């Protein structure tokens, strides 16, 4: 079974984002970029499926400008077999990404498609579900355990209040939550080897997809800042403040 993993290049999760002075967007110039943490978990899971003999090939796909090839190479260094970059000028909105990925699914015919549950830039949490809808497959979001049995996959999902287990027919779309696995670190020889793994570049036109604007970003602002309050010296003082000043207890 082939496994397809979709990954995204995003701001490194340790970097504090800054809003541009003209409020058109956030400022990503000269900011450290990385593989989206949830996508990294998706890659790790796919590689583990291959190591367990469940998957035969792991294909990584990313949509974006040429720079996203870096993140595809990162995924290849983690153990994926080959990469596909879909070249676009900017990072398109989730529905467009899902349409492009649906074409790749039609070409590649994977049994399982893994994505991160959300990217830490847009925080949309949409692409996997949209892709599942477009290819007419079942979906398991927020996965914390994935088990492939013949012709089906059982997934434990992290839902509000607990855990839910579902079974999906293959092909199926799974989006990863934080606790699905702990991704490995790429070793230097693997990073060198990744440079030689095949990486195809396609355009939306190659795939017959015309990207439309569904959402318009009107403004980006810095959030209102909370001011640091005071330090209290003792538990007694804390209780006094909460009772008489904040009046919350």
């Amino acid at each position, binding site marked *: 079974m082939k496994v397809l993993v979709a990954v995204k290049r995003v701001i490194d999760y340790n970097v504090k984002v800054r809003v541009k002075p003209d409020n058109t967007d956030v400022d990503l110039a000269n900011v450290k970029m990385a593989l989206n943490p949830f996508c990294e978990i998706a890659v790790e899971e796919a590689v583990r499926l291959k190591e367990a003999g469940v998957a035969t090939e792991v294909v990584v796909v990313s949509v974006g400008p040429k720079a996203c090839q870096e993140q595809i190479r990162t995924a290849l260094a983690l153990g994926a077999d080959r990469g596909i970059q879909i070249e676009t000028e900017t990072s398109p909105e989730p529905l467009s990404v899902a349409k492009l990925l649906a074409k790749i699914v039609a070409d590649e015919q994977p049994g399982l498609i893994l994505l991160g549950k959300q990217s830490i830039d847009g925080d949309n949490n949409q692409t996997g579900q949209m892709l599942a809808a477009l290819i007419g497959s079942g979906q398991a979001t927020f996965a914390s355990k994935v088990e492939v049995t013949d012709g089906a996959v059982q997934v434990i999902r*992290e839902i*509000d209040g607990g855990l839910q287990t579902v079974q999906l027919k293959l092909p199926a779309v799974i989006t990863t939550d934080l606790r699905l696995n702990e991704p490995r670190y790429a070793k230097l020889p693997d990073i060198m080897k990744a440079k030689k793994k095949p990486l195809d570049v396609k355009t939306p036109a190659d795939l017959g997809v015309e990207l439309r604007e*569904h959402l318009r970003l009107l403004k980006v602002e810095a959030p209102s800042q909370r001011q*640091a309050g005071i330090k209290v010296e003792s538990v007694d003082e804390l209780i006094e403040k909460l009772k008489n000043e904040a009046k919350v207890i």
Partner: protein
Amino acid sequence: MAILVIAEHDNQALKGATLNTVTAASQMGSDLHLLVAGNACQAVAEQAAAIAGVSKVLLADAPQYEHEMAESLGDLVVSIGSQYTHLVAPATTNGKNLMPRVAAQLDVAQVSDIIGVESADTFRRPIYAGGAIATVQALDTIKVVTVRGTGFDAAPASGGSAAVETLEALPDAGLATFIGQELAKSDRPELTSARIVVSGGRGLGSAENFALLEKLADKLGGAVGASRAAVDAGFVANDLQVGQTGKIVAPELYIAVGLSGAIQHLAGMKDSKVIVAINKDEEAPIFQVADYGLVADLFEAVPELEQKL
């Protein structure tokens, strides 16, 4: 044309998040319909009909809707979706699972996790873990929106008297099967709607030590939360995680104990009305957002606090 709100419930009672979502939807337009899809959920439809501002309740009562599976419920929402200007759901794990599927089937975009309504097609939402706030205009004729509960007040649960109409269930496509679920049983209030939340981090050191926070939470009638570090270390269950990818809370009082305050954690609680931080590291970033900071050993301060309350 009307607005459709997808109700969140457990087949017996409406979940609180539905009420906040109704408030958000009411700012997008006037005629509000509520979809209650579930199994043996007549009681929920009656509660839904009583919400102030709801003009009609659609009840789809069938076994395939018992667990709000996105595949079958999505087909149902899509089948009536084009009769509405807006399809709105709470940004709970159910809403997040369902709505993008609906949007893609209707070939429209979704606006996730909104915290403000500027106009019928323009919304405010946090991006980059709350590091920035985007104002987004949805250009499609049908707007699919999920709502962050803490961004809106709850609509009054009584005062309305909407008619309940039955909606025919659709055949299940058989793509996904519900196997089972384990829900945490707790007498404490739900994390996202609790008036007081007591959260712990890595500083608690063990699952056993979380009992200190539980005692404090119980004394205050509050819920217990945790940082990602505490969840990853196995101190508490996953669904107690507060933060960018966990629960978003905005209680009246948030007590952060033994947690440093990573930006991803702050994203989940910085809209709380009053924040208290108890940490022995006075440099911890949590103190920069705390109204009241106590630099102290939590193992002394928390029991003392619990006793003196």
